[in-house]
């Protein structure tokens, strides 16, 4: 499936899980400025395709990505990161998205945040 189709599917799945997704959100926190493909500002959950085609790699350079992932390790936010080299099938997108959302729920539950 194409990136556009995958984005559409992710939006549907995140929405179905109760998130209020904003597409093409300008994320600007602690000096990290990136455009996220989908982001729920309240729940601080989202998804992002990192592809050279749209210049994402310029934003998600190694340093930005490291600092972004460090914040995810701490549980500040959760963004499903999809690399352009990942082979996208509908089933893979579904499995990855559901797994990611379930992992998010587990982390929230561990940190006492109600969903």
């Amino acid at each position, binding site marked *: 499936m194409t990136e556009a189709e995958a984005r559409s599917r992710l939006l549907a799945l995140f929405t179905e899980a109760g998130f209020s997704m904003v597409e093409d959100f300008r994320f600007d926190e602690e000096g990290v400025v990136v455009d996220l493909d989908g982001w729920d500002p309240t729940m601080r959950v989202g998804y992002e395709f990192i592809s050279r085609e749209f210049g994402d790699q310029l934003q998600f350079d190694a340093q930005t990505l490291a600092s972004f992932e460090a914040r995810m390790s701490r549980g500040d936010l959760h963004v499903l990161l999809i690399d352009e080299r990942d082979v996208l099938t509908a089933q893979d997108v579904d499995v990855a998205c559901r797994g*990611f959302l379930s992992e998010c729920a587990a982390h929230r539950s561990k940190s006492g945040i109600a969903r």
Partner: protein
Amino acid sequence: MNSQSYSPQQVLRAVQAQRELLNEQWKRLAEVERLHNIEREKIIAERDEAALDLSKAMLPALDASSIARAAQLCGLVGLPAEDLPGRREARRAFLVSRLRTISVEPLYRDRELLRHPRTGSIPQAIAENSEHRRPLAEVVGKCESHARFARLMEVGFGIDDQSVPWWRFSYWSDRSAASEIVATFPAKENFSEVREDYVRAKEAVAIFDAEIHKLRATIAAGEALDREYVALYNEHQHIDEWALQQARVRIVRHMLEADASLMTQRLSRHKDETLLFLRASGLSAKLTYLDAIHKKNADELRTELNAQKAKIDGVYQRGVAKGRGMPADKFQIFAVNRGPKYEKRWQRWGKTYQTVQSYDHWDRGRFYEDLLWWDLMTRGRHDGSYIREVTVFHQSHPHYEYDPTPPRHHHHPAATQDDERDVQSDRDAAARSAEVDGAGGDNDDHNAGDSPDTGGDLTATDAS
């Protein structure tokens, strides 16, 4: 279009006629090629037979006195010093020794026990190793057939699950792939177990492969010994015959590559050898000449036919395809029947070819101190300057002139009544030719263009 022009339809008919004539010439050329190839095969067989006869007369046996005589006769002065009989005996001794060595080599001596395809111990060991290897290779094959398996091994999936964090899409793809792979191994619970099995199987397969490769190499070495033994045994069985044959080939090659007149002079006191040499030398020359005649004429004709085709195509394009027709003066030149012109060329070619092809009076060569077969075959009446061997002869004999009745003949000690008759026949033939020449009936290479054709035809079934 004015009244002085020919219509496109008329031009088309002329184009068709010219194309038809060209096709006939191409077909005839192909047939001549075929006939020449048949002829040259025939001459090669005759030449080889003549060379064999000569070689037998020159060197009846491979002993010192026969070699010395042959060397003296043909001028291969270094030959006796090469000690061919001694070298043959040394080779024989080597063959005996090597055959003995091979015969006691276990790989050769015990070849049935070791290498028999069904019962030999080595094929059996290969079968056993292959049998043990098979289930391990299946594990490796099953794993490696999954498109994502190599990546899972690369990222260490199953060793450290945290190497790729869970918010990466690839983490989930890896998990899915690992599940799929584990599912193909019912006895395994997770990818770690599969990975361990795979690593062990991969190592074991490599060990079995190395062992099987070694066993196969042993079989190959044994087979090489078999082949060597057969070849050397065969050589040992025929060593006398082959050594003699090799020496004969060298002698005859030397004789045929040398100046034919010098070689005839060297052999002059040995009539049998002289006649055998002249036959072999003459047949070699005949082959060279016929090849050269054929090549020259075929190449020239091809060039001309291709040029004519280009002309016809041009006329067709301008006069027919573009509907312009053709002016009368040009049309008359274009539409002229070129058949007779081609026929004259075929006749000229055929005459030269057949003159050389039919020649077989090899013994006449002994009357010439400067022997140029081309002139004997053609009685000096055809230009052979396009033949390299003829040109080389003239360069090395700048004062040479062909004499149809060589003076040497009159005093030749070996001249017989038959020889006298042959030379008289030559004289008569030369006189007849001169008469024909005088009447304007000759068509040799120097004046063929201005006389009617009476020569040979390379393909015609009705004799010209």
